[in-house]
């Protein structure tokens, strides 16, 4: 039996892959890395791309939009992102949550209309996000 390494690929929504493999290749931020059994411990963020898993000479592919790779000598863990992230989007979301709290503090009586407005605003934000995502995918291909 050949030497194998255990690979777990998980996202917040589900477990994507789990099993013993011969090798795994992942798109790290500094360039693609190939991990074989007994690799030294590594911790690195991943960028959007394809994870290739080599089992018995056959390849399996998984698309991820980013995440984190942890390598321990006998186990590789890939934490895939589901939320598309960008520094400025995070910033905007933080700002919004802050403003929300302030607004409610200042106008305690207007709760009802405000809740509605807020729902609309979140929807708009979600739309903006999906546009962003489309743009990114278009750029990659």
């Amino acid at each position, binding site marked *: 039996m050949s030497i194998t390494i255990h690979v777990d690929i998980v996202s917040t*929504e589900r477990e994507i892959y789990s099993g013993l493999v011969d090798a795994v290749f992942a798109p790290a931020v500094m360039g693609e890395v190939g991990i074989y059994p007994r690799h030294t411990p590594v911790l690195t963020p991943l960028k959007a791309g394809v994870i290739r898993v080599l089992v018995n000479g056959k390849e399996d592919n998984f698309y991820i939009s980013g995440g*984190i790779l942890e390598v321990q000598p006998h186990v590789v863990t890939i*934490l895939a992102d589901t939320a598309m992230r960008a520094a400025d*989007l995070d*910033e905007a*979301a933080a700002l919004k949550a802050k403003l929300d709290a302030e607004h409610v503090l200042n106008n305690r009586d207007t709760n009802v209309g405000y*809740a509605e407005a807020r729902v609309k605003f979140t929807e708009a934000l979600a739309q903006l*996000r999906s546009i962003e995502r489309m743009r990114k995918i278009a750029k990659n291909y």
Partner: protein
Amino acid sequence: MSRGKEIRNQIASIKNTQKITHAMEMVAASKMRKAQERMLAIRPYQDKIHHVIQHLVFAHPEYIHVYLQDRAEERRVGYVVISSDRGLCGGLNNNLFRIVLKHIKDKSDSGLEIDICTIGQKASNFFVRLPVNHIGQTVQLGDSPHVHELIGTVKIMIDAYKEGIIDSLYLAYNQFVNTMIQKNNIVKLLPVKPEESNEELSHHWDYIYEPNSKDVLDNLLVRYVESVVYQGVVENIACEQASRMVAMKSASDNAGDIIDDLQLVHNKARQAVITQEISEIVGGAAAV
């Protein structure tokens, strides 16, 4: 028969209420099933990131990240409190708020200041009234929240921690044990602490960080905190539905009891009227 009609009206109105509570019970039961599925779906991720973080605590990096460091003195603590958006779910939110208040009181008695971020309408309504520093909120998450909706609230707290404004961060939420039992829970998120000693990792070792340890750890720990908070939110939704289901079931049962009682009173009143009429007729006939 005016008394009888009054009681009949009352019975009808309670029957309507019972229909509503029964419907809410059914809805909560089906939503609870979905919420439980969502809760189970993120468990693998949660387990794995937890493992990674625990490995990390045992690593010996040349640079100790702020998330892993104990602050020499605590001056200010942060809380993220998760509640439901809607009421009618028994004592779920109030029980949680009570233990949070107790926790906060312990802290403020020892001279610490408090920052609070709330998730959910009920928590936001509750903590706005208190003399604490309410620095962020997220409301109206719905039944299937997405991680990106929580990023804002979480980032406020993480930034505050990074800048040294708060010295530790707690998360308060309801933990789903089973349909009947929900445990209110306060956990310490930051700084990250090792849970148990790990023989395998106790030797001197460290990761290779690419591009550098600070960026990688920033990245990882933000995701860790987010995923813990997300899990809290998802569990809290499952708790909310379970608790609502139980509360609505007992409300329907109580409505049934009241209807039975009223029915009895109604029948007695009806009987009394008939008896009275008969005795009047008999009395009248005797007089003739």
